[in-house]
């Protein structure tokens, strides 16, 4: 069947997505015609089954994340999903539209990789596994230590995918990761159409061959990708949680390649039977991972309450200040961050502090990176995805529940990332050693053993 030019352009827009009518910039008569020709499909946005509700877009089934009100459109009590509200409200009386006509395709692009760097032996092996997973359309976990160079491991696989006309999604829970990856990937694949989608980006829809997107932005796609790469599958606060999994499962085609990247995969994920695993236990620069040391500091909360800095922490700061080092101090909560910051001011110790809701977060991180400030106090927000050359790291109150094994491994992974400064201090200041602390230390030592260090 020959499609009219209008429906042809609707196909270009809608293929690979599942959207609300309000998100589709076409006249109602075009949509009606397309429905009549059976080239688009609509399903109700919420699935209601007796007392239970499920959002078709984000997979939310948690009663406490649905709202209800008398709706002026359908003139009855109408439920809506609060979990993915920021993508546009889905109510019981709304439908999701997707393209079901002939598939649209991307061309085969040969020799797209412009990157000419050298892979480390560990990266090379992982790169081979990535290519194989793309050919065989299987599921692969790349378990790479912090600082192994995960991104470069993808490059040859991506080139292979584009050469066979495949469409690729790189999804990650964190906006920061999307923003950081985008320019690097763009510079490496100049001929390929690439889009970055994240909350706050101007672009909302994309037909690009390579899409980088946050969890939420992934939810607009439907049966779109041949290859799905999930970066930082364990990143707080999402971990490889149900909504990311749901979004990724719906965004990929029924037969597709899934590649998961992590330095700290959950035990549950590692046990998954259909999953192939390739490990990179060594950093790209060839030096071992710095192993955390433990330092008991007693009841630090009590001292902090009295406006005193635990003496060992004070000493740690002074020692490295004298050596003109950059220092990163992790604290368990935003409230501790505020008190510690006050105590430091009282002691005239110059520093900056950041947390997730901090509007000046990026400026503060920039100032630290430029070494305008030597001490940065932070919540777990800076536990991953950042590199500060020559940094020394400490955790205050590492016994706190927020410092899981994964968090502590990531935090330790901030040290020694650069070839020029491959070592550094990592201390857990604690009031009682936890299982997570021991596990993190053992995890790092194990990776070093696997990397050939003893």
């Amino acid at each position: 069947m020959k499609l009219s030019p209008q429906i042809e352009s609707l196909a270009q827009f809608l293929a690979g997505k599942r959207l609300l009518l309000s998100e589709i910039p076409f006249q109602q008569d075009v949509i009606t015609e397309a429905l009549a020709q059976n080239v688009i499909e609509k399903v109700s946005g919420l699935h209601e089954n007796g007392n239970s509700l499920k959002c078709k877009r984000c997979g939310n089934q948690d009663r406490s994340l649905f709202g209800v009100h008398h709706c002026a459109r359908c003139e009855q009590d109408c439920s809506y999903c609060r979990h993915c509200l920021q993508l546009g409200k889905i109510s019981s009386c709304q439908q999701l539209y997707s393209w079901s006509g002939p598939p649209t395709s991307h061309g085969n692009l040969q020799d797209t990789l412009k990157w000419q760097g050298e892979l480390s032996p560990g990266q090379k092996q992982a790169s081979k596994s990535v290519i194989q997973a793309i050919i065989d359309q299987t599921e692969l976990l790349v378990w790479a230590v912090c600082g192994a160079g995960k991104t470069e491991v993808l490059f040859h696989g991506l080139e292979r995918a584009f050469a066979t006309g495949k469409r690729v999604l790189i999804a990650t829970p964190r906006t920061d990761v999307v923003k950081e990856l985008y320019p690097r990937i763009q510079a490496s694949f100049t001929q390929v159409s690439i889009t970055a989608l994240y909350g706050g980006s101007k672009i909302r829809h994309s037909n690009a061959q390579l899409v980088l997107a946050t969890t939420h932005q992934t939810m607009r796609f439907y049966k779109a990708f041949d290859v799905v790469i999930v970066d930082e599958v364990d990143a707080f606060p999402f971990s490889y949680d149900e909504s990311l999994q749901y979004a990724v499962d719906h965004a990929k085609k029924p037969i597709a390649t899934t590649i998961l990247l992590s330095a700290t995969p959950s035990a549950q994920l590692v046990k998954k039977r259909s999953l192939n695993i390739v490990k990179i236990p060594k950093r790209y620069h060839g030096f071992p991972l710095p192993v955390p040391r433990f330092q008991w500091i007693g009841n630090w909360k009590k001292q902090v309450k009295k406006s005193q800095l635990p003496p060992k922490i004070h000493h740690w700061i002074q020692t490295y200040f004298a050596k003109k080092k950059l220092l990163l101090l992790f604290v368990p909560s935003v409230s501790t961050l505020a008190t510690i910051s006050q105590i430091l001011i009282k002691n005239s110790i110059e520093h900056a502090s950041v947390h997730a809701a901090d509007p000046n977060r990026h400026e503060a991180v920039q100032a630290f990176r430029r070494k305008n400030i030597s001490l940065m106090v932070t919540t777990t927000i800076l536990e991953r995805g950042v590199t500060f050359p020559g940094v020394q790291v400490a955790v205050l109150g590492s016994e706190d529940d927020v410092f899981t094994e994964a968090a502590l491994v990531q935090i330790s992974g901030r040290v020694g990332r650069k070839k020029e400064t491959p070592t550094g201090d990592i201390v857990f200041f604690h009031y009682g050693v936890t299982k997570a602390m021991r596990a993190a230390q053992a995890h790092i030592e194990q990776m070093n053993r696997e990397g050939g260090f003893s």
Partner: protein
Amino acid sequence: MNRCLACHGTYYDQPGWRRLLMIEQLSQICQTCESKLVLISGRRCIKCSRSLDQLSQTYRKGEQCLDCWRWDQQGEILEKNLSIYEYNAFLKEWLATFKFRGDAIIASFFTNKLANMYEKHFQGYVPVPMPLSNERLLARGFNQSSLLMKGWADAIDSLVRTEGEKQSKKNRKQRIRQFKQNPFSFKSESDVKGKNMVLIDDIYTTGTTVRQAARVLQEHGATKVASLTIAR
């Protein structure tokens, strides 16, 4: 365990006898979000509730803010406005989620608080929701003022809104200038003669909208017209 109506995080309520004996209702939002809501307190403009303590001297005229003083010069029609919270960054974001993203159940956090204010300050007044234009009502799916009145007043429309351009998209000057072109008209079957009315809305910003609505009510015989809003 509860789920915070604002940040969607989970939290536990502080235990206490008042909660247990149901004197105090359940909190609905976590302590962190609660701490970001600031009740208007201290000296406030006698007319519109704006906090005077945070306003620089140049924007004040005695016990009034400069805006209200200007309205007085033009011939004031609004008796007074009362608001509960300061319109800070947190509340701005939260009310935007409520109104523009359509998260209707956020209203349930404010209904009791508005009801208490009404009981205390507006005995004998008839509460009136701010109307939406028909197109806007269909696009949004609900009228935010009517939702804010749920459980404590019948949202009976006395007004109709004809023009639909978004107030929040205009600047202050545009909004005050267009005061003359009134988007509201009177609903023919209603009767407000000799009654005191109080308009219910989410935000009082420049005060233009409530005064436009107040004028229509007065022209149709209302004695006094005031307004009650969540934020100022």
